[in-house]
């Protein structure tokens, strides 16, 4: 078993060429390991292939961020693509009053336990769930749901009937009479997908017109996951998936297979035997788990920082050329603001007081509105702003011409300040990029000198 994909990829990465752009040969080397890791996590072979192919296409010629090794860059792309494939968190859609949820799945997948967990979850959200044992063929199924419901003090439909249509109709009537707003139907499970089970589920579906049809599937399922999910979706039509038994050490690649083959969202994970052990999907966490690497988020953060650094460099370059357009101006004000408490420091530099004023929350909103009301051309070359343009901008941003004039004065002042600082050392003593203000986006050292 691959313990740590990151280490493996990093090993390969030693042979990868240096910085710059990701090369095809490098990517292919990395993808072989990724594919292997995915299969070892029980992702279906075909799904794993399609996935790595997608990553390859995206990664080729991708620029490697400055602080990244090619391996990190590759892993970052893999992580992001995986999170994308796992999909977003989608809450239950309970449109009707009462709303019905159908739980379908194979025997042993954990339908009844999940029914209880869902009821507990919905109750916590202020809904009034009503459990319906809808397997008319197996009396044991009825008993199991009844016993669990009683233990959790959850209401259930307690009449035994041998006709599922009749059962559904009576349950619906009961729910209206007793004012339950969410019906959870625990349908029959079979060892395998057979016509009898499918027909039973279809009858129930046609009778209750459910808001959600959720496939309950064992999170430890192997390559067969595509068959199970594919068949249920084709024959019954599902709206989402709940993966159970995810509290073990299975990597849960079945999630990816099922998602890929049905396109339906993973809604919850079952993470234990207690009624409260139902967890909303965390795409990031699941991606980390499937890949067996814990640092997708770290890489993303690093990437964000890297982008900021590149932006800062760009800005510095513009400064050197004494070009500072209004977009840069706005970006810089925001960046400084994000750096945290800097009032004291601003007091120490010439023109700092004006800058402080600009960073006032209310003022910042107005500044932003003004700049965003300008055309691209005006932002790049503020000299073109004449009286009629200013009136237009004032109208568009809900400010006044005076305010625009004031802003332009401040802008010119900052620009002048920059020019003066140009001559000084780029990593001056007062505010250098990684000084005490090292958190948040990095400032170009020469902003303050």
């Amino acid at each position, binding site marked *: *078993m691959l313990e740590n994909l990151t280490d493996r990829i990093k090993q390969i990465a030693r042979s990868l060429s240096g910085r710059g752009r990701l090369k095809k040969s490098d990517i292919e080397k990395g993808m072989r390991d990724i594919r*292997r890791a995915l*299969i*070892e*996590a*029980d992702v*279906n*072979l075909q799904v794993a292939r399609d996935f790595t192919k997608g990553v390859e296409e995206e990664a080729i010629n991708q620029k490697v961020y400055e602080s990244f090794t090619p391996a990190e860059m590759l892993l970052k792309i893999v992580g992001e693509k995986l999170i994308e494939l796992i999909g977003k968190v989608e809450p239950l859609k309970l449109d009707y009053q009462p709303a019905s949820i159908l739980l379908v799945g194979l*025997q*042993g*997948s*954990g339908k009844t336990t999940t029914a209880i967990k869902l009821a507990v979850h919905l109750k916590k959200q202020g809904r009034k769930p009503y459990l319906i044992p809808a397997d008319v063929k197996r009396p*044991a*199924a009825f*008993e*199991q749901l009844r*016993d*669990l419901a009683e*233990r959790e003090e959850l209401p259930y439909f307690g009449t035994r009937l041998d006709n599922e249509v009749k059962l559904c109709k009576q349950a619906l009537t009961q729910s209206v009479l007793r004012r339950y707003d969410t019906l959870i139907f625990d349908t029959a499970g079979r*060892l*395998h*997908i057979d016509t009898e089970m499918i027909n039973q589920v279809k009858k129930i579906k046609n009778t209750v017109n459910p808001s959600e049809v959720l496939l309950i599937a*064992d999170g*430890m*399922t*192997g*390559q*067969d*996951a595509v*068959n*199970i999910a594919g068949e249920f979706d084709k024959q019954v039509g599902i709206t989402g998936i709940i993966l159970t*038994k995810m*509290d*073990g*050490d*299975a*990597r849960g*690649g*079945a999630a990816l297979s099922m998602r890929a083959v049905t396109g339906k969202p993973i809604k919850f994970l079952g993470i234990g*035997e207690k009624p409260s052990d139902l967890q909303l999907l965390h795409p990031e966490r699941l991606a980390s788990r499937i890949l067996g690497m814990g640092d997708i988020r770290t890489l993303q953060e690093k990437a964000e920082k890297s982008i900021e650094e590149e932006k800062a460099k760009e800005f510095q370059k513009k400064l050197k050329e004494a070009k500072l357009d209004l977009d840069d101006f706005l970006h810089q004000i925001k960046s400084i603001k994000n750096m945290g408490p800097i009032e004291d420091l601003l007091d120490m530099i010439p023109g700092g007081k004006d800058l402080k004023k600009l960073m006032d929350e209310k003022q910042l909103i107005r500044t932003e509105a003004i700049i965003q009301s300008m055309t691209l051309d005006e932002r790049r070359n503020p000299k073109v702003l004449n009286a009629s343009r200013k009136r237009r901008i004032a109208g568009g941003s809900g400010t006044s011409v005076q305010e625009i004039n004031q802003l332009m004065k401040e802008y010119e002042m900052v620009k002048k300040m920059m020019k003066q600082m140009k001559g000084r050392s780029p990593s001056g003593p007062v505010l250098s990029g990684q000084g005490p203000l090292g958190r948040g986006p990095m400032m170009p050292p020469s902003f303050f000198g």
Partner: protein
Amino acid sequence: MGLREALKKTRSNLSKNIRNLLGRRDPSLLGEIEDLLIQADFGVSTAEQLVESLENVQSQDYYSRLEKELIYLLNEREKKKQTPKPPVVELYVGVNGVGKTTTIGKRGYMLAKEGKKVLLASGDTYRTGAVEQLSKWAKRIGVDIITSHYGADSASVAFDAVDAAETRNMDYLLIDTAGRLHTRSNLMEEMRKMKRVISKKREDLPQETILVVDASTGQNALEQAKSFNEFIGLTGIALAKLDGTAKGGMAIAIVKELGIPVLFLGIGEEEEDLIPFNAEDFVCALFE
């Protein structure tokens, strides 16, 4: 339902694909065989090793060599047993929902049909409905059962059951246990205690500790087997739910890595749908 019929889906997928491959000669042939094995849940490393063993083989012999390799692998681990002293105690363990209770019901039927005196014991005092489910099986196959109430100490149920099996001169005692994920150490400890209590009664008991594995389980099956083996020592595997589209290839990995033999295959929901494992038939049915 016979094994061949039960494995028809598995077989038709695998054999058709392998046959399609065998007519051709191209360098990617081995890679494609590897893919087929992976899709049957053999796991990457087992599939790789099997394919590596074919490297110096003519392509028209790939299939027969693969078959031989697998039969050898599966048979090598089959253990020779002395005739055990009755009652033979078989303890069934496994994660949740794999089909332990059903496997016991069918195993009881298999033994009863051979004329053996069989006693069942419901050691699953946790899952609601578990006792009822096994009681129904006992009634259906006409054997006795020892039960206890919900929440009772499962080890004491097992102890009482061994007592009963001895005094009633039973040939076999089949003990059901609550499903537990192999990562839950407290539940695994509880299982260890259960086994220890049985051994206290007579030190050769239980003669069999059988892990029931769902055939559709992926790579985690090996982790399950490793963990259960470590905690309580396994003597065999029962592969359940083999009649669907799942191939149960993880059984090969378990045999290969841990040397624990496959004893039974579950191939349906009826009482006769549990069959003793036979390597030739299994592999034959897989590739026929």
